[in-house]
């Protein structure tokens, strides 16, 4: 029986080659695209789900509801975590993690190593696999260091690493560690990946009594039977005692309690969803909407391919009716027939999946590059996605046609009394659904692209085109590197000015960001401000506009400029009360004096409003980026000179300079990806929808051949016929547009909410989207209708 089914399936597919091609092609594309998108989304949802204690693991963060809104931060003071472990029942284990880095000198080579300083509890919380060394005593010694497999290989090659001494050098000096173990690398779907682990006591600024230094994150493992809510309740009691002063200050300054009654609280966030906790400021966190959008677009495209399949199968169902009738006469039962047709659907889907997989294999390298993924065709994400897709497609594309086909009554079929509806409401509905999805994506793509264009072109308040930013690295101290480069480049007039800063503008090629917020009390109010370490010529180099006072001034040898003087931005001036603020003494520790005010510029991404910033030539702040303003001629030559000068200053540190406009572009990588996905998504949805329309046109014309012939004989013109055949379809597309446009408007308004700086919703985009869809649909349909209209009417009538 199975062979009979297979034979008949293959032969009917071969008989209707155009429809088979449309189905297989559509399914292959839909399966390939959704496979990639689903795999990416599954990976996002799988972050850190491999820890055995996964459900009990949580990150700790501070919640602060101040007068300017809610602030959440995972930066904790050093004594906090050990105290929580001791005082809060239900916290079974805890660890602090301070991310840091150091240089390691091996065989005269300087290698950088990322080191996380952690507590011993780390290994009782997270899963790890010891490759070398003894489990249980990994960090029992204060001078022990645990290496990841990759670091061990990089530092020691194939030699045994355990027992080797490592000399780590950073800005504070050099310290020796003994390698106690090598553990397997965490998979790339972990936020906890590390190069090396050392004891927290070795961390920069470690002081068990210092409650003012918020410089690390913390994780807890809850004991069995305790849940997050009950622990957070205990934390509330704890914070009300330990942070009494902070709470009082916040309330005094107008902090508003949130729904849970807190202005200030310690809260927990489950590790499993930390990947999506961008509200608590994780650098690696992403918006959860992103994977959901991926899944949605994948489902859209799958749905469109399935709709094509359903419409084509139903449209040509009459050709299978005799077979159904006969099989029933010979004793086939309804379920058997449904099974048979379902099997045929599955066969087409499998053929589509095969081509889809080939397509995936082909585009995977460029796709991975776009998403910085390393999905391989053999990865579990791909196979689980494939299973989900096959199941969904089989269900969506197979069920209804199988039901309809198996419904034919033997008696009716054999008496030739079967009537197939010419244009079923279902077909129209499905076409509308297809075009709703297509128009939704087209309009969204247009809005996203407009917003990105706006982000790219918005003046940021500083010169981003001519200023180069060079990450300094750890080999040479920042100020020294700046002085050396200044003197080496002094002879070249193309270098217009040079400065440095502790916080890059945008995201450099080193991919790092560094943020420091300082809070102090001024005139009985708490003032929070970004604190950015800079050097002379900062204002000139970035071409900031000075509104009041003066920039830092080395000519007049004002010694105080390197110790006391600060520049502030407009927002900070407003916080200080506005008006003329130059000369104001800030109650920082030590005190500082405002010498000038610069106009607000976007030192943060455009998703955020410009906040208070204070700039100081502060010796306590490492300068990490050198800023070079260049003349706009001879740029390649100047770049070469800078590079060779850099090679002399820091021979073992790569020259990874980038212009600030590249850096600010890099801030919108996520938006760029979103835009790419939407562009490809809308292109494919419209392509597949039109493929379906094309097939519908072919079928309709076949069904109406006689009518077309009679109309022509009676004097209808070609344009009459084309209009008659196209108008029905265009009406459906128009209805789809009326449904899709409000949806797109709503979705895009939501999306734009994420940007502080955003475009006004461009209404013309929606008209353009609708027009595009209608135009493409018209071209698709008219291609067939013109052919039908031009055909000789005698032929059409003979057909009958």
């Amino acid at each position, binding site marked *: *029986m199975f062979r009979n089914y297979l034979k008949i399936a293959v032969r009917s597919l071969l008989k209707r080659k155009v429809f088979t091609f449309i189905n297989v092609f559509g399914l292959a594309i839909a399966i390939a695209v959704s496979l990639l998108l689903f795999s990416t989304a599954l990976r996002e949802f799988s972050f850190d789900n491999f820890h055995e204690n996964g459900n009990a693991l949580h990150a700790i963060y501070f919640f602060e509801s101040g007068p300017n809104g809610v602030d959440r931060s995972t930066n904790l003071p050093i004594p906090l975590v050990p105290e929580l472990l001791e005082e809060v029942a239900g916290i079974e284990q805890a660890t602090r993690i301070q991310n840091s880095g150091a240089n390691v000198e091996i065989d005269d080579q300087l290698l950088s190593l990322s080191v996380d300083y952690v507590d011993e509890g780390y290994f009782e919380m997270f899963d790890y696999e010891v490759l070398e060394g003894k489990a249980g005593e990994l960090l029992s010694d204060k001078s022990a260091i645990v290496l990841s497999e990759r670091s061990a290989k990089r530092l020691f090659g194939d030699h045994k690493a355990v027992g080797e001494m490592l000399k780590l050098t950073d800005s504070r000096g050099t310290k020796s560690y003994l390698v106690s173990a090598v553990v397997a690398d965490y998979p790339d779907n972990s936020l906890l990946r590390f190069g090396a682990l050392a004891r927290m006591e070795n961390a920069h600024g470690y002081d068990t009594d210092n409650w003012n230094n918020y410089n690390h994150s913390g994780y807890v493992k809850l004991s069995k039977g305790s849940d997050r809510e009950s622990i957070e309740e205990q934390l509330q009691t704890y914070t009300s005692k330990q942070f009494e002063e902070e709470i009082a200050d916040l309330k005094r300054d107008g902090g508003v309690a949130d729904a849970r009654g807190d202005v200030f609280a310690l809260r927990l966030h489950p590790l499993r969803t930390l990947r999506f906790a961008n509200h608590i400021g994780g650098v690696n966190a992403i918006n959860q909407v992103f994977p959901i959008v991926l899944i949605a677009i994948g489902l859209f495209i799958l749905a469109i391919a399935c709709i094509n399949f359903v419409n084509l199968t139903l449209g040509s169902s009459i050709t299978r009716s005799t*077979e159904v009738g*006969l099989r*029933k*006469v010979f004793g086939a039962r309804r379920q058997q027939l449904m099974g048979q047709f379902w099997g045929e659907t599955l066969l087409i889907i499998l053929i589509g999946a095969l081509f889809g997989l080939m397509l995936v294999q082909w585009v995977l390298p460029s796709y991975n590059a776009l998403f910085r993924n390393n999905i391989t065709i053999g990865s579990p994400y791909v196979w689980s996605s494939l299973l989900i897709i096959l199941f969904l497609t089989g269900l969506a594309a197979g069920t209804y046609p199988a039901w309809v086909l198996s419904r034919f009554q*033997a008696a009716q079929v*054999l008496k030739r009394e079967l009537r197939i509806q010419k244009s079923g409401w279902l077909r129209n509905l499905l076409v509308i659904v297809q075009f709703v999805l297509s128009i939704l994506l087209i309009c969204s793509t247009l809005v996203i692209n407009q917003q990105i264009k706006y982000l790219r072109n918005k003046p940021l308040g500083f010169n981003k085109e001519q200023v180069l930013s060079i990450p300094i690295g750890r080999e040479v101290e920042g100020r020294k590197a700046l002085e050396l480069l200044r003197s080496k480049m002094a002879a070249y007039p193309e270098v217009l000015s040079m400065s440095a800063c502790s916080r890059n503008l945008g995201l450099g090629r080193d991919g790092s960001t560094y943020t420091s917020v300082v809070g102090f009390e001024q005139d009985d109010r708490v003032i929070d401000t970004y604190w950015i370490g800079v050097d002379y010529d900062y204002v000139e180099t970035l071409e900031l506009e000075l509104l009041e006072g003066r920039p830092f001034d080395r000519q007049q040898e004002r010694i105080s400029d390197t110790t006391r003087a600060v520049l502030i931005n407009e927002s900070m001036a407003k916080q200080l009360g506005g008006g003329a603020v130059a000369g104001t003494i800030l109650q920082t520790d030590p005190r500082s004096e405002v010498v000038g005010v610069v106009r607000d510029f976007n030192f943060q991404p455009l998703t955020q409003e410009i906040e208070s910033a204070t700039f100081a030539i502060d010796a306590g702040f490492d300068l990490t980026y050198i800023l070079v303003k260049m003349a706009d001629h001879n740029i390649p030559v100047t770049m070469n000179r800078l590079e060779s000068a850099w090679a002399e200053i820091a021979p073992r540190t790569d020259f990874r300079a980038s212009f600030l406009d590249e850096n600010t572009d890099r801030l919108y990588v996520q938006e760029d990806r979103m835009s790419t996905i939407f562009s490809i998504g809308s292109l494919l949805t419209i392509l597949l929808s039109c493929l379906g329309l094309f097939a519908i046109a072919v079928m309709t014309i076949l069904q109406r051949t006689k009518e077309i012939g009679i109309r022509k004989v009676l004097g209808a013109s070609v344009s009459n016929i084309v209009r008659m055949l196209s108008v029905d379809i265009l009406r459906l597309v128009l209805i789809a547009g009326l449904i899709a446009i409000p949806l797109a408007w709503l979705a895009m308004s939501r999306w734009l909410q994420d940007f502080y700086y955003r475009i006004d919703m461009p209404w013309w985009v929606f008209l353009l989207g609708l027009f595009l869809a209608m135009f493409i649909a018209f071209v698709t349909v008219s291609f067939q209708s013109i052919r039908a209209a031009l055909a000789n009417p005698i032929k059409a009538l003979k057909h009958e």
Partner: protein
Amino acid sequence: MIRTKNLIKVYRTEEVETTALNKVDIEIQPGEFVSIMGPSGCGKSTLLNILGLIDNPSGGEYHFMDEEVATYPERKRSNLRKHNIGFIFQSFNLIDELSVFENVELPMLYTKVPSKDRKARVEEVLEKMNMMHRRNHFPQQLSGGQQQRVAVARAIVNSPRLILADEPTGNLDSSNGDDVMKTLAELNNEGTTIIMVTHSPYCAEFGNRVIRLLDGQVVTENMVNKHHV
């Protein structure tokens, strides 16, 4: 073998109600060759479909092989049908995507005949119908007469006790029509009961009884004087 009493079939659409069969009483014994005749729309095919258990009557009794089957659900009818009844249609109703061999084999797939026996049986009936040399051809490659011979082969492949033929010669020229009628007569001689709907008095004479229908009612029943065979 077949007995109906007050058999009624009514078709309803939204606006009209058509009575296709109106209190039909017939009785057919095993081994008979009965022709049903009458003008178009008199209910011949409807009667044949009900007798063949493809359709259910709207009322009355239908006894098939001593079972009252008028109200049988599709599942039970289908079981009776596939083991006992063979069908021959005016328009052959061969499946275009299947070869001659596969078309003939099809009914046996539903009676669960083992593959080896199927092959032997298909070859046997194709031989009998003189179609063995065409076993790998597809219906479109055959003439009308050849197609109907394949359809007859398919109807007899499960050795049914009853063959229902709905205008089997309607689409054939006279010589091919003659061949089909001779085959049916031969099958009847071997003991198969045959009920045939036909417009042609000539074909009806191959049987031994003619039932005439008009407006869904039996008007006459005559025995046939055989002179052809």
